[in-house]
Every structure is written in C-alpha cells, then in structure tokens.
C-alpha cells in the first residue's frame, strides 16, 4: 500500500508544536497588552466643545482644582463646573475670545455644554472621590499632571489591577491633606534620600496615623 502522506509530513507534528509555542504566547501577549486599558484608554484625548486649557488655569494661573471641581471633597462624583462657574471670570476676562462662543451660547440659552467624558469607570464600579482626597490621595495619582496638559488626556490606565496596586500599597500615594491639589508636590527629602524612599517613609507614617485601610480584598468596597 502506498504511503498516503509524503515523507515531509513526518515533521509536521513537531512543526505544529513549535509554531503553537510561538503563536499562542504571541496572541496571548498581544491580547494582554492591546485589549487592556493600558493601551485602549491611556492617551485618549478627545476635543472638547470649549478647548479649556488646564495648563493655563491650573498651571500658570495657579487656580485650585476645587474652584471648578467644587464637590470633589464631599461627593463620590467630582463635578464638572456649571456654565455659571466659567462666567464668574469670563463675563469679564477674554469676553471676545471666539473659543468661548459655546460658553456664551450656553449662558444665554440655558442649554448645558456637553463636555466629552474622558475618565469613566464601568457601571459596576463605585469609585468615590471624597473617600480618596480626604484621606491623603492626590488628584495627580489618578489623573496625572493635569496642570501641564493643554488638552486633558487619559494619563493612567485606571484598570482594576492598577487600582489594586495602590490599594495594596497606599503608602506610595499618601501625602499631607494640604498638598492634595498641589500636583507638583514631592515629599521632603532628608539628606540624600531618594524620592521613592522619602515617599515610602512618609506614606507608612501617615498610613499608620490615619488608619488608612483601603479595601484590597473586599470586592464590595467598589462593586455593589
């Protein structure tokens, strides 16, 4: 009986195995990276109806984050300012700037400005801003150096893994309560201490004093 398969096919199984060994990790790795927020969200930088430059307001002018995001310390949701808040200044400042046309439009018609949402948690995640900013976590930990962004973008992945990293090691983010909105703050360095060491030392102290105990194993801390 003639051979059905050619001689070359004897090596086929081993070829398949080797191919598989390369392909499967490659596909897995690609999924791992490209299908996670690290790739899909970081850098998301949509155009806003009014090109509000955070670098000028929060950076150059030194306005506090809480001037506009006024309820961040009391509510779960950090609010976007009402048109009225913008008008507090812009009724006088840069009145003629054409970029502010949508603002005037909104002020006259009473119709809200539709800001494009950049940071968004899924429906089943109950993130609370007030729980963080009142307990030593700065805006910068999750939103990056907004005071240096001309157009705000998604700076951190904000995936669950990323959240848990900090919930397991809160000392890496804790700082004095009066420095929460100071995005450029760095811990005082003693001698030739590195910044990371200084942060760690301070963070551990604060964690102990304030009884910082973020939910790291309790699903219900964030999912209800």
């Amino acid at each position, binding site marked *: 009986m003639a051979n059905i398969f050619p001689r070359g096919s004897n090596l086929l199984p081993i070829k398949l195995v080797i191919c598989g060994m390369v392909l499967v990790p490659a596909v897995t790795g690609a999924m791992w990276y490209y299908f996670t927020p690290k790739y899909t969200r970081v850098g998301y930088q949509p155009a806003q109806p009014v090109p509000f430059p955070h670098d000028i307001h929060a950076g150059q002018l030194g306005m506090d984050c809480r001037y506009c995001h006024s309820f961040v310390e009391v509510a779960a949701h950090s609010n976007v300012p009402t048109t009225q808040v913008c008008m507090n200044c812009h009724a006088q400042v840069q009145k003629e700037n054409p970029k502010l046309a949508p603002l005037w439009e909104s002020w006259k018609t009473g119709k809200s400005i539709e800001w494009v949402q950049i940071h968004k948690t899924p429906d089943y995640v*109950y993130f609370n801003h007030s729980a963080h900013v009142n307990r030593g976590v700065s805006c910068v930990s999750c939103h990056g150096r907004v005071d240096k962004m001309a157009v705000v973008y998604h700076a951190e992945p904000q995936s669950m893994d990323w959240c848990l990293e900090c919930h397991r090691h809160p000392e890496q983010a804790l700082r004095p309560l009066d420095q929460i909105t100071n995005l450029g703050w760095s811990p005082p360095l003693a001698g030739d201490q590195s910044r990371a060491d200084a942060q760690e030392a301070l963070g551990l102290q604060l964690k102990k004093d304030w009884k910082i105990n973020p939910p790291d*194993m309790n699903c219900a801390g964030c999912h209800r």
Partner: protein
Amino acid sequence: MKRIFQHPEEPATGKKYWRSLGQLSGTPEFKGWLEREFPQGAAEFNGGDVSRRSFLQLMGASMALAGLSFAGCRRPEKHLVPFTRGVEWSIPGKALFFATSYPTRKGAAPLVVATYDGRPTKIEGNPAHPVSKGATDLLAQASILDLYDPDRSRFFLEKGKPSDTATFEKALDELIKGAGDGTGLAFLLEDHASPTRERLRGLIAQKLPKATWTVYEPLGSDLADEADGVAFGEGLAAAPTIEKADVILALDHDFLGTDGDVAASRAFSSRRKVEGPDSKMNRLYAVETRYTITGGIADHRLRLPASQIGGFAAALAVEIGAAAKDAGLDALARAAKFATASFDPQWVKELAADLVASKGKSLVLAGPRQPAAVQVVVAAINAALGNIGQTVTGRKVSEKPAQSLVQLARDLADKKVKTLVIIGGNPVYNAPADLDWANLQAGVPTVVRVGHYEDESSVNATWHVPLAHYLESWGDGRASDGSYVSVQPMILPLYGGWSDLDVLAKFAGLPKPTGPELVRETFAAVAKPADFVTAWAKFLHDGFLEASAALPEALTFNAAAATKLVTAGTAPAAPANGSAPAAPANDSYEVVFIACPKVDDGRFNNNGWLQEVPDPITKLTWDNAALISPKTAKKLGVETDERGTADIIEISVEKRTIQIPVLVSPGHADGSISIALGYGRTSVGRIGGGTGVNAYQLRTTTAPYFAVGASVRVTGKRHQLAITQEHGVLEGRGADLTREATLGEYKESRDDKTYFKTMGMDAHAPKNVSLYTNPPLNTAESIDPHAWGMTVDLNTCTGCSACMVACQAENNIPIVGKRQVIDGREMHWIRTDRYFASEGDKDLDDPELVSQPMMCQHCENAPCETVCPVNATVHSQDGLNVMAYNRCIGTRYCANNCPFKVRRFNFFDYNERKLTELRKWNLISERGMEDSLKLGKNPNVTVRMRGVMEKCTFCVQRIQEAKIATKVAERDSGKVRIPADAFTSACAQVCPTGAITFGDINNPESAVSKVRVSERGYRLLEYLNVNSRVTYLARIRNPNMKMPGTEKIGAAMKSHHGHSEKHEAAGATGGGH
C-alpha cells in the same frame, strides 16, 4: 469528611411545622422544592421553540457575525452635562432628603424621601414623627413605583381624544362660569384629611352653595364613624391606645395589617419585647374569619364566620355583664339581633374572665367594617370594662361630614347632576354593584375625571385629567394621631398632571396655584405662627407641625342611643324583615370582602412590586382567590393542587355571579369564603391587566363587608395560581428553623441559658470541630473595627412583608411576572416564610402560625463561597458574604449549596425585557427599560443582568456610604469607627415593630450587639457549622392557661427539645470524624 445529618423522624405526636398541605402529605412536588434549589423544570432552558442544540448553533453563527465588525469594541463617546446655573443644595450624585407625607384614608403617613439629582428614589418613614418613627407600611414603600409607572395617565383627554392643559383650563373656566350657584354640580373625592382641601371646600360652598360634596372610600370607616357617633356623640371618634392594654381582643379587626397603621403595630409590639425571665407581655385574643397577620401573632385565636362576630360579641357582652355585674351591658347584649354564633362557650367564658380581671387595662377592638351595631356592642363592652379614658380615648373629628355615595347615586339617577367632578377614586370599578354606577355616570352630561390612570371611570368621561402623584404636588394632611403634616413635591409633575388642590382651587375662584401658596395660607391659619417664615421653613423641614396632635377628648358612653341602634337592627347584615341573618348553613355560604394587604382597594393593582410580593398569609401572588377552609373545600370537592392549579367555583349572591379560583387556606372559618377586593380590573396598565377576579361585582350597599346566603357551584374549570409557600423550603424541621415557648416555659428556663439554643438537631448533633481556619475577620481592635450582623425577633415580627418591598426598592430588585413566580424564580432578597404549626396531623383546619423573615445569613463559614469556581462570591473582613456581579458566570453552584435557599438567579434579563417576552430569543426581542422606570432606580446599586446570581448584601451600599462619610468627616484623625447605629439596612429601617435590628456587632454600643446576646437568641442550622451572622430571637406566646386548647400551646416545643427527648443515635454521621 462529609457529615450527613439524618434528621430524626418527627414524633407522631407533638407539634409539626409545615408550610403547605402538600408538605404534610409529602407530595413529590414539595420534595422537589425541598431537595433542589431549582425544582424540576425551573433550571431547564425553556426557550420556547429553540432547543438547546439549535440555540448553540445560532449562538455560534451570531458570534461569527459579531466578529466581523470591531466597531463594537470602542468605547462610545459619553458626555458630562452640568447645569448652566447651579441648583441650591444640589450636589451631583448625593442624596437630598425631604420630609413629606403620603395621604391615605387612614391618615397621612409621614415620610422622608431620598432624592438623587432631583429624582425621588426611596421612601422612608419620618423618624421625627411619633406616628412613623422611621417606619412605613408596604403600600407607602411601593407608592414610589406608581410615580414612575409607565402606564400612568400622561395626557389630557377630551372625550377620549388627546388635548392639553391650556385647553382644559379654558374649558374648566367656561364650566365654572356657567355653574351659577352650583346646582347640578357634584364633587366626588377620596377620603383624605387635608385641611387645605377642607378650606377650599368651604370656599366652594360659599361660591357654589348648591354644589354637593361626596366622599367615597370602598374600604372606608363609615360604619366605625357611625358607631362612634352613636356611642359617644356626634363629632367624636374613639381611638385605642394599644400600648396601655394588657389584654387585647381583636374582633375581626386586623389592626396590625389592613385595618391599622404602623403606629398600631409599634404600640402593640412595644408590649411584646420580652427580655429576661421577669418580663411581662400583653396578651392578644383574635376572633376572625380568615388568617390575618393579627391572628398570626395572637396568643389565642378563634375562627368564626364574619357574620357570626356580632353573635360572639353579644355572647361576650353577656358574660362580661355577668362577671362585672353590669346589668346595662347585659340588657344591651340581649337586645341585639345578631346571627347565632357557634363556638366553644368555655372559650368566651375564660376570655370574659381574663378581660374583667384586667379591668381598665383591657381593650376590645371591633373590625371597622363590621356592622355599626356590632361596634356599638363592643363600645359598650369597653365601657363596662372601664377602658374608656384608659385604653380608649376620644378625639374630635376634624372634617365636616360629607354626602354618601348612595345619596349621590340617587341624585345621578334623578338626573339632578349636570356636572360630576371625580377626583381620584375609581367609582365605576369599586362602587357597590347594586348602584350600577357605570350607567349612572354615563347619564351625566359632563364628567370631569382627575385620575392617576385612564381607568374604568375615565372611559366615558368628558374630560380626563392626569392627577399629579403626591410626590409631585403641594398639599397637607393629618396623620392618624391628628397632627398636621406637610406634603411637598420632590419633582415637577412628570406628565403635567394637576393635583386635587389645583382643580378645587379653580372651583373656589382662585387661580391655579403654581407653588405652595394655598398650603401656606392654611398653615398660617392652623399654626398661627408669630414668625411665619421661620415656622413655615421648620414645618417643611420637619414635615409636621410640632405639638399639633389631636388632644384626647373625654368620652361618655351613651347607652340609650346604643340600645336604640342595636335594637333598630340597622346592621346592614340584617335583612329588611328584622330577623337575624342566618348563619352559614349547609349549602349557603357567607362571602367576606376583604381588603387586600397588597393592592388595597385596587388602587395599587398596576404596581408590580405589590403584585409580586406574596400575601403575608396565603403567599399568593399576582391574583386573588376565594379563600376557604380545608373542610369546606372537601365538602365542595375542590382543591388547590401542589402546583397551584385551583378549581374555579362560581359564587352567586342575589343573582350576581363571579367565577373565581379557590385557595384552600388552613385556619379559615368553615362555611365562609373570603375574597380580596381590588383585582379583576378591566381598564388598567400592563402589570394589573388580567390579574384576579373583581369581587366588587358581588358587593352591595346593604352588604358592604359580608354577604350571606351565597350559593356555590363547582365549574369544573381550573386556573393556575402563583403561590410561593413551598418555594425556598429548608432542610431541617420544626425547631431547627422556628423556635418558640410560652411565657411560662420561658420563665422556668431562667437558669438554662442554652434553652433556646438546644432545640431540634442542635440538641443532638455533636459539637462542631473545624478542620480548617478561615482568614481572620475584623475584631474590635482591627484597623477596620466593624463586623456586621443582624437580629430578627420572631416575637414581634408579624409577617407584614414591608421589609420585602423596602428591600426591592432599595436594591433595584426586578419583578419577574406570574409565569416566572410559578417556576420559583421570584427575586426577593428577603422573603417572609410562613409556617403553620399543628399537633401532629390533627387541627389542619385550625393551625397556629409563625412568620420568619429569611435573607442571606452571611455565614462566616459560607457554603456558597467554597463552590464558586470564579471567586465571584467571597467573604469580606467585616463579615459580609459579598457578590461581585461582574465576576459571576452563572454556574449557580452557590445557590445549590446554600442551605437557606436565599440566592436568586437572573434567569432572564428581567430589567431589560418585557415580562411577556422573556422567552423570546435574545437577539430578536426588544430590549430596554422604560425611561420612567430608570429614574426610580437606586444609583448606588448595580442593575443586574441576565445570568448573574444575586442575594441580600446587608445593604452594602449603605455600609460603604457610612464608612466613607465617617472617613470624610474625620479626615486625618484616625477615628474610623462608624458611630453606633448611624445607619441601618432597608429592612430594619422600615420595620414597624422593630423586629429587625442591624448594625456593628463589634461595637458594644450598638443596638444589635445588645439584642444579639439575648437568651432567646439562636442561629439557624447551627449544627451545620455555618456560623451565621443573623440571630433569630425565639417567639414567646403568652397563653391564658385556663383557655380550652391551651395545653397544645403549652406542649409546643417540648417534643423538639433536647432536654425532654434525647436522640443521640439520630445525629448519625457519615464517616469517622
């Protein structure tokens, strides 16, 4: 090492606990409910035409199609839309609380309503008001769903054609201009004690003096008012002070349920909080037709047809007259013409003796819908017992009397009425059948109907106007203690509806109010404040005017007037010839029209929460039925089988006929048929359509409560009922689940701290030894010092089921529809298990009753957690058994392993799909929730989707909110402990009797940690070593040892108690441990 528990054979004698007659006879259906989490069929695919195989093929194809476009992978662009101008007090995402009240015929219920971003989402009782003290009943809880009901009336209709508010206002102005002195103008309203409405009524009477004012409530207290007027004088009403009474007799009076309010429940239970062997408690006797929750909690209960209650009252009056040597009472009782009642004379004798023994501290209550003569006799009994001024106090009636519906019907028949204004109510549906209201109303030239729904009464109306919900309108009212309460809107009318005050203001010649101006004026007149602005602000803030409760009035019993009423035979039950109405005879039955604890008089018929919450006693959902006793069922040859299929009978009363399925209900009086009103609506929304049978068709002006002489025919047809009594049955029997003792036994056990902890299997099972150690949970010294726990006091739980609706509202629990309930898929996180108890197989006709709320027990050694393959259900350090919905893949292993059967699975997308189309194939059926329903959801709780397991979370959203609030307030101080009892779970908050306590068991200050250590405390299925966080407190009955049949109560748990009978061998084990 698996330990298999062989439950000891139940002794042939001694008390048995059972849920259904099917359980007693051990039907295969019951075994199915017991042994499987999801009984036969419930876990099957049930996809209609699509088999599992073809489903997989179709799914494969659709996955391939989905793969073709990756557009779905990108996150859609969402917008943040702030206000243009900030709104006072409003913080996005934070709740604001407003005090208001819910107007009902029993008095306005004081409430505090949570609103998120302008949307009311949850109703709670007003904790500052003495009537509510934070509690509500289930109707007030569910009333928020009516606000968002997508079937609500949305449009102004002129002769059935869409119109608008401006056209209506113009037409109304024309109407009022042509009204002259009001001749031919008639108002028909519901019974709300609103001072502003009364004020407008006065203004209308000045402007339109000939206009008539009628108030009609199908379940109103007209007869009680009449009786009080006769017995104590016009303008006075008797009000019981239940908390002062040592011995209470409820004669067909469901004062803990449909006939009472939360204040009555609290007053009663305040005397039943038994702690320590020296404690005293009140004693309740109940004489009633069907089992009510009042009868369920009673220490002694006698079942008697409603028509014989009068006879019983007379017999009792004779006994008391003799015992108290009161000749007047004796004469009055003997003069009364009541049907002879048949009962054990010893029963009434001992009852009389007990009442007389606690003279001045006893209380007899008569059902408010019993004939006035019966109520007058009861007033006489109270007078003879010296209770007047002690446990019965007087109160002035604040409203002027209104015309009766019968008089209005006469005017309509005589064509005297040209314009009929109906505000609220639904007379076409619920007026007595002999009035033939539909035809009368059709004969009126102009009918202006202001209603919540386009219902039966709107069909032929000239104008239909959407009535604003009470959460949408300004108003006021009087609570049941007579205090002045506010009604304030949380939201503008969703569909531009008018409130009753808006319409009446127009008739009073005032402009349509745009705000609270009418109420402000009334408030100024009622409160006469020195500083109006401050007083008004305080009134709205508190929700009521301080110290405005009605002052007690002295009552004097008018024996002469009472005798006149009783001898005149004005009792509607008495036929015209004056002879006593016949007792239910052999083939003649009595039909009792009962108030439904769920849909009330029919107004909540389209409320899905109330349709689906099981009746507290019968556990019937989505229907009403003719309740009959097992004996009567046998005589008729009808049954309700284990799957809930019921025989349909035809009931005829004076040529009026209805066909209705029967529901055999233990504890019902023989020869009597009870039918809940409020079902069988013909013009109602999608929820209420097709539910139940309209019993108003049998109800006449002469027999508003019960009709005698009914004949019954078995039709041979059958109807499927959705009854939940066998759903979620637990392994373990009797004392494993509910434990009880008499007060005497409790006192005897004073030295034995383990008395209640060693009953049932717990008396036999060897001590638990754990081979494994759990990760440590929080202790009082931990950084997070909290540990959550709950107690449920079976001694004060009446089974009213308000907790079930409160939980549904708080936790976004969907309704599933009748078909799904039949399959055992109802989603309630907390259910109320109702057990009957009887001596062996005897007394099935007259069992005792225990209600037991059952929710996730948050076991520290939770069986559900160990079987989850994806760690979707895990334990938190503060002792919660938490569910991560986004992790759950729906294997349902956890539910199968839960000994308490408290886990609920989303078999379908109940939130997104129409209940009638649940079985349609997923990809082709319409999805999406009605917009209005979305507004009412709690924003702090995930709305679950298909394929996800869920269960009680101990209101984890409230726990987290409290934790965060504490941390936000304390910031860097390090005081992270939540103050004791700073918040509570939804079920504990709503409970009118305070039976449920929730809180931090690590905090010695908290209420729960104090209740938890009670001697009455026990945990369910302790022998399984699940180590649950919920402690039940055993029920204590306080029987009168001289009563006939008491020995049965006394013998209650003895057979289940380890101390009297040891079954060491029975605690068998399945291996060497």
